[in-house]
């Protein structure tokens, strides 16, 4: 990167598409602006006071012309809208094989955790060419995850999840910025996204402190917090079976149906009374205030992973670990 860059680097699969649309719009706008400015200048010169230009029968309206310059821009706008909306739709549909990364924002730090458990502060390492999907929440105010080189931005809200994805196409280090004003140090809530070739990425992952993968952390929480006590098929309490729960359509007591995505799982843990599954009693207690955002994300990663057996191995887990009473 040079010191003075008039254009940001384009380093994601989305970036080239957004740039193409942007430059088209720049071209169209510049042409329109130039045309109108030229007309205005020509009229101003030609019809300046005292000039000899012909002013006979000045028009005060012209139906055909007026309809033309109403309809033509309108059609152009519809075209531009459709183009931009189609590109935007891509942004909202991550590929199924995207690497999950879990992001928790707070004043004025980004905490990012990879599925294998490696945690980063204000930095995100990702492999070149692989789609990455971020599931994000905030512990306090609204923040916004912004990587100009990828042309992506998504607000990060407290109390709920938002998501965004990208596929990096160029190795390098790019600005990660907070784009939603979040208080005193908003401007320093910045970091970098490091895009590395896949082999180097694997090495980078391996050299980290090999903490437990998020799914394993979630599995441990699932046992320690007593989830198995009810959600295990052998339990005496009648609770929904959570095997293959992720992404499934769930029918609720009041006749609605919802897809069990991350938001549904999060809400079900924190506000169990919100979407009670049809055929079950609303007996689950709320875990609000007992689980951190990271805990919740680990539980979700567990529920969507291959480890999720609905607590089948539960009895083994009940044997106390060394050091616990």
């Amino acid at each position, binding site marked *: 990167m040079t010191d003075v860059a008039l254009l940001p680097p384009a380093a994601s699969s989305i970036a080239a598409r957004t740039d193409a649309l*942007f430059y088209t719009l720049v071209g169209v706008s510049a042409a329109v602006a130039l045309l109108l400015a030229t007309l205005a200048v020509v009229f101003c010169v030609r019809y300046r006071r005292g000039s000899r230009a012909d002013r006979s029968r000045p028009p005060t309206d012209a139906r055909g012309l007026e309809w033309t310059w109403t309809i033509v821009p309108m059609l152009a706008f519809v075209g531009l809208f459709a183009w931009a909306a189609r590109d935007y739709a891509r942004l909202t549909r991550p590929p199924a094989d995207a690497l999950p990364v879990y992001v928790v924002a707070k004043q004025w730090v980004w905490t990012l955790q990879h599925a294998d458990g490696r945690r980063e502060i204000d930095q995100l390492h990702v492999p070149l060419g692989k789609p990455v999907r971020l599931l994000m929440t905030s512990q306090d105010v609204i923040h916004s995850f912004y990587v100009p080189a990828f042309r992506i931005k998504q607000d990060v809200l407290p109390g709920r999840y938002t998501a965004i994805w990208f596929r990096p196409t160029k190795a390098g280090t790019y600005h990660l910025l907070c784009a939603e004003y979040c208080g005193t140090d908003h401007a320093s809530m910045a970091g970098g996204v490091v895009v590395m070739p896949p082999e180097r990425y694997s090495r980078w992952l391996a050299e980290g402190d090999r903490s437990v993968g998020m799914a394993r952390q979630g599995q441990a929480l699932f046992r320690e917090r007593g989830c198995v006590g009810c959600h295990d098929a052998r339990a005496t309490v009648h609770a929904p079976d959570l095997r293959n729960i992720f992404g499934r359509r769930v029918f609720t007591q009041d006749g609605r149906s919802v897809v069990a995505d991350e938001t549904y799982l999060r809400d079900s843990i924190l506000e169990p009374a919100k979407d009670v599954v049809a055929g079950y009693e609303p007996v689950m207690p709320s875990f609000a205030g007992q689980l951190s955002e990271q805990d919740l994300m680990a539980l979700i990663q567990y529920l969507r992973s291959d480890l999720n057996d609905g607590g089948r191995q539960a009895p083994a887990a009940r044997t106390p670990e060394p050091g616990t009473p």
Partner: protein
Amino acid sequence: MSADAPSYLEDGYTLRSWLFTRDHKRIAVLYAVSITLFFIIGGCAAALIRLELVTPQGDLVGADTYNRLFTAHGVIMVWLFLIPSIPSVLGNFLIPMMIGARDLAFPRLNLLSWYLYVGGGALTLCALLLGGVDTGWTFYAPFSTLFSRSHVIVTLLGVFVVGFSSILTGLNFIVSVHTLRAPGMGWFRLPLFVWAHYATSIILVLATPVLAITLLLLAAERLFGVGFFDPALGGDPLLFQHLFWFYSHPAVYIMILPAMGVASEIIPCFARKRVFGYRSMAYAILAIGVISFLVWGHHMFVSGQSVYANVVFSILSFMVAVPSAIKVFNWIATLYKGSISFTAPMLYALGFVGLFMVGGLTGLFLAALAIDVHVTDTYFVVAHFHYIMVGGSVMAYLGALHFWWPKISGRLYPETLGRVAALAIFVGFNLTFFPQYLLGYEGMPRRYHAYPAEFQLLNVLSSAGAGILAVGYLLPLCYLLWSWFRGRPAGDNPWHAQGLEWHTRSPPPKDNFDAPPDGGHDPYDYRPERTT
């Protein structure tokens, strides 16, 4: 004709005769003085912001001070300058005269509006003096309710009170236009300035109460912990954004519609030609007024709002650009076969058309979903809305002030200085804000007091432009003040303008007209052959 009746300026010289006046013209002058004071304060905040941004490090002021500066700049410029600017000063002065009335429908209410404005403005100033606010003019929750340790409540109260001044002014205009038109004056005889203010007033009356309610909810959450917006209390932060932008997007049209009205009066006068497409201009104003209520969600494309809502708000935002485009075409067509003279007001009006066009075209970028994802909350947005609000509204306000200055003061402003100022403002404005489009596309977020080094060059250009802009604004402040006392007498109608407001003396008598005005008057009866 009783030409001996004193002008409204000669109708008493005591402070009391001004502070307790019910004359719409005197109230307009009171507004002009007070919004100028707030413009100066808001401008000083902007100057400090631009100085800080000359270097990438946060070295001139600290982060907290900077956050208070841009909040003060936004709150003051939006609510204490832009929203009252053209309507409360020129609308107040001119609407009764344009419709051939002696005053607005509710003169006492009009005075109350000014007092509410001053009271709310004073409260907002109190908040500044106590140490300021750091939420941004948008007051996003839950930052503003639970996390900010600044004077949020006093500021909210100030804005809340000023809001009532807006509502009362809007109400007054609506009732006046409906009931006080001179006998025989049909709706399609009204100048476009009046049409624009009519649409603006409807927005003021319908949208401002929503702002008032939103601010009360915010205060309830901050003071009493009632959970409306903070998820920790069971609220929804997006609810705040929906409510806030439901007011604040139409508020943009409160600022720009009157400016369009101004351009539609100045351009025909100095082109000596009837405004092109009068009816389509009037319908475009109404269309903008209506659609303006349906586009607020385009401020929230990356907020977490649903994808479907984003798509709908995107197409509606493109649609609101159609009537705006029509207006630009019509202004330019008005020049065709005219007889154009380039006085200072005309330069301002032409500058307005150009800058509004750039602001409008870049609005299309922001309505386009995929681009907005990248540039929202960056300097691209800052540049866009300054092109509309400063390039558009402030240019038009100054143009209007020059155009109707002889009417208001009875004196001429120095023409050469007027043209120099208009050019300085046009050049300074573009140098200040055009680089910000580039900064935005490069990815510089707004509300940063320190920024990555590669953004410096464009920031230095922008700050240099702000210097020129400041000189451009100081010039009219000085020479108009001088002209008020020492300017050459203007005569009743120095521009040979056709508006009904010019068919009386300048400055007008207290009751506006010496003889009953003609309801069939044609405000655009200009002919190119007739030279001034």
